[in-house]
């Protein structure tokens, strides 16, 4: 199914619009309010951006130093070239340690690699403990937003799902729904023998893994089970703890409109002598899966993304079609760049076109990623590398030929005007032919002028010079 087809379905889905409208606008307002509480927001953004770009420029060395620090803290480090390799590493850790149950906190990279399926195929039970992801798992659904996985569902839909899957009385009261989930999840935390997380940040200078959650589940899965595995993309590094401080300020404000996320967990190594809780083993899986290839090209900048989701909430296209239309793990403007980057532009050549280039994403991005620039760069690559519709190719070629030859252009345009005017009634065209029919399916097309501006202007000038 193409992006266009998925988008069409989404536009016809009334429930989806109720759900998206309720939340995305709210996120946007909360973000604006939260940003007003940060002194010199733009200066912090600039510093954060500089730190991220610095790490990306020296990613090889940064990763080596990060690994040294992790090893020194007692963690074990694994490198995965692909998503499948990453999954295999996690499965192997689980099987070797006799793990039966894995409790997961929210991790986008594990969605990217489709980890849950791999674990289940190996006979390991996986429980999502983030409330949204838990509901996704219950409904055998897919997340549709980076930080709010079930933004596409209304609370009424969640109520019916829980009624069906958990045999609880129907309610659309979110507090009660959260309580239903909490009662079940508590047990899971205690039974799990492995906790699996992503990593919001990895601090190069001391090998700290930083996790933020609002539900505390991240803290539970990294302390209660005997093994903790953190999966992270290789781009998740920040240089120092001082940088981390800035990123945390930006992330919480941009993502949920908070000054600080409720639980910020900093992890350095497994349980040490004298600790009364914590895992016996800490594994960090560093995942490339296409990232180093992105680093070498025009869209390297997108690796600076901190997955706050602000660009999704600000994007009028995302707000119209929701996350599933983007067809992969990462939706919205960032997804339109990351997905072709990770999975190949040939498979997702439509995504960079899924934008009016309004630039709202660039305005809200906490690390000032120039998303429209990257979308344009990918559109160009798509033209170079993938087949384009004939009408567009020929049309633009002809257009360029004419538009660089003014006399020819003038003549051609007078024909186009005359042709379009012949299809108009009352000065308006109701059904234009060819590609322009995309226009008139939804709007009237004004008939062109009988005489061009240039002709009118020259006539006016001639009259003026005579008088």
């Amino acid at each position: 199914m193409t992006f266009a087809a998925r988008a069409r379905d989404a536009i016809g889905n009334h429930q989806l619009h109720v759900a998206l409208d309720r939340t995305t606008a709210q996120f946007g307002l909360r973000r604006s309010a939260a940003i007003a509480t940060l002194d010199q927001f733009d200066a912090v953004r600039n510093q954060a951006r500089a730190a991220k770009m610095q790490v990306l420029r020296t990613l090889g060395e940064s990763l080596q130093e990060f690994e040294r620090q992790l090893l020194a803290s007692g963690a074990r480090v694994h490198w995965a070239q692909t998503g499948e390799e990453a999954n295999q590493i996690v499965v192997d850790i689980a099987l070797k340690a006799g793990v039966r149950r894995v409790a997961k906190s929210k991790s986008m990279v594990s969605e990217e690699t489709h980890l849950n399926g791999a674990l289940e195929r190996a006979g390991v039970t996986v429980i999502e403990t983030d409330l949204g992801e838990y509901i996704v798992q219950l409904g055998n659904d897919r997340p549709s937003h980076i930080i709010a996985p079930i933004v596409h569902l209304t609370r009424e839909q969640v109520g019916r799902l829980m009624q069906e899957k958990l045999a609880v009385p129907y309610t659309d009261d979110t507090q009660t729904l959260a309580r239903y989930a909490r009662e079940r999840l508590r047990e899971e935390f205690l039974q799990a023998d492995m906790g699996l997380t992503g990593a919001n940040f990895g601090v190069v200078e001391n090998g700290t893994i930083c996790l933020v959650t609002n539900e505390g589940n991240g803290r539970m899965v990294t302390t209660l089970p005997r093994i903790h595995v953190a999966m992270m993309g290789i781009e998740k590094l920040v240089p120092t703890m001082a940088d981390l401080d800035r990123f945390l300020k930006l992330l919480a404000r941009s993502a949920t409109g908070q000054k600080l996320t409720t639980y910020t967990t900093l992890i350095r190594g497994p349980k040490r002598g004298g600790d009364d809780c914590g895992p016996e083993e800490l594994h960090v899986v560093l995942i490339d899966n296409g990232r180093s290839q992105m680093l070498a090209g025009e869209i390297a900048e997108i690796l600076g993304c901190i997955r706050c989701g602000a660009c999704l909430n600000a994007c009028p296209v995302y707000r119209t079609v929701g996350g599933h239309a983007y067809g992969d793990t990462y939706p919205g403007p960032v997804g339109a760049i990351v997905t072709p980057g990770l999975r190949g532009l040939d498979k997702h050549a439509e995504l960079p076109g899924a934008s009016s280039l309004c630039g709202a994403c660039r305005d809200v991005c906490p690390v000032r990623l120039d998303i429209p620039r990257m979308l344009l760069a990918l559109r160009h690559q798509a033209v170079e590398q993938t087949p384009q519709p004939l009408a567009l190719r020929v049309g633009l070629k002809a257009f360029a030929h004419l538009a660089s030859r003014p006399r020819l252009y003038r003549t051609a345009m007078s024909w186009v005007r005359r042709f379009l005017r012949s299809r108009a009634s009352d000065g308006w065209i109701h059904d234009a032919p060819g590609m322009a029919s995309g226009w008139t399916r939804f709007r009237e097309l004004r008939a062109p002028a009988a005489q061009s501006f240039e002709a009118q202007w020259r006539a006016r000038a001639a009259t003026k010079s005579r008088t």
Partner: protein
Amino acid sequence: MIVQLFPTCLVNEFRPDVGMAVARVLERAGCEVALPEGLTCCGQPAFNAGFHDEARQVARHTIGVLGATDGPIVIPSGSCCDMLVHQNVELFRDDAAMADKARKVADRCREFSQLVAERLRANAAPAAAGAARRAPASTRVAYHPSCHLQRGLGVTREPRELVGSVTTAESVKFDEQDECCGFGGLFSIKNAEISAAMMDRKLAAIEASGADRLVSCDLGCLMHLEGGLRRRGAAIKVQHLAELLDEAATP
């Protein structure tokens, strides 16, 4: 002061009256308006579609025509202006000589409202701009800030000030006013359903505001919104900012 007018392809073919209004407003603001010979289109449709060779071909021509003139270049479109100011330089990043020419042209470009506001500020007496602010009859104006104008060029204040300077026009705010209208050039055709859904949201907000007139600085957005309003049967008048200012100054 002589200003070079780049009318844009849409004005040239679809709305010459907007071009005339632009010229009259500029003339009242003390400018002498010249129309360079041989202008066509800025090439943005090809550029945004990813067809860089085609875009370069058009840009080379446009830079050639404009580069042979002097003085400020005025463009009654935020989007085309952004193309000339930002994207052309990018298109020629591997061609130092052309990039230099592109930059020189870019530095001379002003979007219409920018230039008018500059002239009004420069003139001691604003009335000299001919902005007598008499007609139109009392009207409630919804201003749509187009994306390339507000986010690309960073022009947010000037158009609003100019609308505000028309004493018989009351500016009305509407929901999600700064949001994209869904035009997006070829996006409006290639992603027609999404574009139309964005348009519907925008038009509903404008209708709910009680505005009887919709004003913007980009003809692309205006043709899209006007076509949508007409399909809905709504009676909101749609104007380029230049038309509103011209109407206000015409006895």
